[in-house]
């Protein structure tokens, strides 16, 4: 029963490679490509709270954008990327940018300053094409990797995608822990959602069996580090 009281917090992860590229799975939920000084973040879903208020009258706290940008700011300050790629669904809906608070708009501009910034379009924000700085693209090649929002039907070696908001669940000794995760096999990587108010899809969903027919490893984001966990240890909802 004796347990260490605190595990040390670390952002470093053991080397993971995909299509010959070295990847660091960051504790923030971002993907760091050290050789390209590129930070990839997926599914920010900015202005999700205000989208709910506008659409359904549920007044979720309007701080989700601020929170997501703060986490992103922390990662950017630490890693100092030359390039940031937002891997689609960066805004929860097409009107998201128009609802941005002045301060949040300024935060985005500050993050973009002095670096290349690419908005990959996703299904939620396909209509967003300007007004938020940066460049817009459908896909982007970085070294041996192809970055796009939704994974392609046919597996393409070196694909990095988002869209599915994967979460993994571990149940043990009467406790269940459910966390966002990176899902990885030898050919592709599906990234966790970076946004502060985003839900998740369990990696035991059949979607992931189709994406990873040969099985996968899920890297769950813990409090202090990222944990590599085999599919067999993960439970359904």
């Amino acid at each position, binding site marked *: 029963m004796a347990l260490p009281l605190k595990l040390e917090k670390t952002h470093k992860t053991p080397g993971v490679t995909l299509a010959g590229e070295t990847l660091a799975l960051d504790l923030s939920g971002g993907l760091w490509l050290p050789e390209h000084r590129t930070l990839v973040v997926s599914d920010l879903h900015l202005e999700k709270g205000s989208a709910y208020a506008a659409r359904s009258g549920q*007044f979720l706290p309007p701080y989700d954008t601020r929170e997501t940008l703060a986490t992103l700011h922390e990662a950017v300050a630490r890693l100092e990327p030359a390039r940031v790629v937002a891997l689609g669904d960066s805004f929860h809906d097409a009107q998201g940018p128009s609802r941005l608070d002045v301060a949040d708009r300024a935060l985005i501009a500050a993050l973009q300053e002095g670096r290349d910034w690419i908005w990959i379009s996703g299904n939620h924000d396909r209509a967003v094409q300007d007004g938020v700085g940066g460049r817009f693209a459908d896909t982007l090649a970085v070294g041996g990797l192809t970055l796009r929002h939704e994974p392609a039907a046919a597996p393409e070696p070196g694909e990095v995608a988002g869209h599915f908001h994967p979460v993994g669940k571990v149940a043990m000794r009467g406790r269940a822990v459910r966390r966002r995760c990176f899902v990885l096999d030898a050919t592709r990587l599906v990234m966790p959602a970076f946004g502060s108010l985003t839900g998740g899809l369990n990696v035991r969903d059949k979607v992931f069996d189709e994406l990873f027919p040969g099985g996968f490893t899920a890297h769950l984001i813990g409090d202090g580090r990222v944990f590599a966990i085999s599919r067999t240890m993960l439970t359904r909802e």
Partner: protein
Amino acid sequence: MPKKRSPLPSLPDSPALPAAFAQWFAARGWAPRPHQLALLAAAQAGRSALLVAPTGAGKTLAGFLPTLVELAERAGTGGLHTLYISPLKALAVDIARNLEAPVAGIGLEPRVRIETRTGDTPSHKRSRQVARPPHILLTTPEQLALLVAHREAAELFSGLKRVVLDELHALVTSKRGDLLSLGLARLHRLAPGLATTGLSATVREPDALRRYLVPQVPAPAMADLITVAGGARADLHMLETGRTLPLAGHTAWQSMPAVYDLIRRHKLVLVFVNTRLQAEYTFQELWNLNDDGLPIALHHGSLDATQRRKVEAAMAAGVLRAVVCTATLDLGIDWGDVDLVINIGAPKGASRIMQRIGRANHRMDEPSKAYLVPANRFEMLECRAALDAVEAAAQDTPDPRIGALDVLAQHVLGMACAGPFSEDDLYDEVRAASPYADLTRDDFLLVLDYVATGGYALRAYERFAKILRGPDGLWRVRDARTAQQYRMNVGTIVESTTVKVRLARRNRTKPGSVLPAGGRVLGEIEEDFAETLTVGDTFLFAGEILRFEGLHEDEALVTRGPPGTDPAIPSYAGSKFPLSTFLAARVRALIADPFEWDRLPAQVADYLVQQRRRSVLPGPRDLLVETFPRANRYYLACFPFEGRLAHQTLGMLLTRRLERAGMRPLGFAANDYGLAVFGTRDLSERIGREPGFLDGLFAEDMLGDDLEEWLDESAMMKRTFRQCAVIAGLIERRHPGQRKTGRQVTISTDLIYDVLRKHQPGHLLLRAARQDAATGLLDVARLGMMLARIQGRIIHKALDRVSPLAVNVMLEIGRERVYGEGADEILAEAEAALLDEALA
């Protein structure tokens, strides 16, 4: 209903009682009881009144008599005259049925129409009830909320003369009571001549209920009080089997043969237990002993509703000999002629035990017969204290509530749905409700702002406002959709989300697998519990050992477990009441006074003598702290007797403080009587070396920053927040039958909580959640009282081994989670499994 033999002298015909009524009583050989006439007199004088009476005193007829008399004398049809509100919809339906006889007998039919309105009432009937109301409408607090929020409410209630509130003592202790008080305040405004009648079991503070019944604006006021004394004294005993009871544990297996024997010798026995797990266990034990094949049934909140209805019907039909049940049968309807009540485990509270005893022999003039069955030696102490309390007719019902802000938010939106309101008027109206009498104008405005735009410092939602103030200064609801949302989310009961338990069929073509469809639904389990199960786990449910086969959509699939196996998963979340403050004080007094020990079973007295010899017995106001080493660990045990919830909170706080003091605590365990913290550093040595260490450890300031820090992180706080968020309409209620889609669309309230806490810690809903935590799940208020009580009264004993008192709580260790065992430890273990796999 009146009984054939009244213990009270029959009075001559009261002038207040019309001839038809007097004849109806006389024809049955009955006489109206004095309290029934007193209530009638109060009503005729237009006064509100609280009737406090024991079970079987004819409370219900007393409540309706003034209405029936008035309706009998009234010419013409008229509109809604009386509202009856009960905490249980089944009770409302039952009362309606019971009123049929007197209404027909007195010749009020068909002139007087009586109807019920519950969640089950079809919508066409509900519309008709508003357009063409009955004279008497029997309903629930939730339905009242919907009715006063109706656009026709002013018309509907303009002629209302009386509101009868049944089981008022049970209603006012919860958020439902807050909601009801606000509905009542609105009724008082719509029908200025309204008089209320509260019906209650014996309570400690009737004045709180008297205030609840009448408006507190313009000035504090109280309803009249009518008390019916006594009733027959209960025939109440502690079951003594002569067998030695263990020092801990709650199953009472040693007493099961004696319990079974009592069932054999009675017609219908209610066997009450405190948790669903105990219900399952007790049922199974009795079934194992049931050589006579007696019809014994099980009744608890997780069982499928149709199965519960079947058990109730069987009780009413007289075909059952015993029912093992939880609090689900505490209140309400008498399903049969119960001649014995058995309460297994600790009574936990004097009022609770009296309510349960009252379920037997529902006649005021005959004694109810009941046994208390302790499961361990501590519970013997508690049973003794409860017997004394019942003997003294002492009560431990909780203090009156301070109205919850989340409930107020729900009500404010409802009032906007009813029609335009002015800020000033609504503020005055709300303060007329006794739980909200002290509401400040600032807080009221915060609630208004919350309802309108979410109450955020970042004014992001002004243009989506749900309620808007017009140029005339009146607030109105935005649109019909918002009103519809209000109606879908009304009420204060937030069920923990559950999943159905379905018996799966084995797949013949693929051995070892199951088919998802086709089997019977056994009941429901909490989602939180289901989430912790892995395939192959066995657990006890619905009287059987079940094997978990996996979740399919929103159902837990199970198969019958192999016979003779022990369930692997020890328990699942079920209600567990903490020991009441009042009973705890009695237990402390009992322990402190050796002259009282004669009245205890010998094994308990011996145990206390042993404790005095090896350590010390604390005085009734003292806190005993023992420190001792055991198997490479150092322990600190203390015995506040303040209930498990308060002890768990105390345990968390002590562990934090010990860690800060460098004492390396590893974990703690708590039960209703005390707690034990353990670690790797010698606590006796530190306390001996550093005078004031212990006083500092237990200083009241732990309720400051330490508590705040821990509270904010605790899972219980998040659960509490979720309830507030649902009640206040921040997130929509999940309705039964509403399926989760594969892609999770619901927004996690944990995420909302974290974001809100970081960016606006003073938000209304966080305040509401903290207020709930103070009195509810974490019992912080009680902990505060305890810390104040023990200042300067801590008695420390450094021992070389565990004391008899400490054994009880030490046995809890290993059943609870260990301090510091966070998510990462679980993940690390799962990761290690992957490494093992790789290296194998």
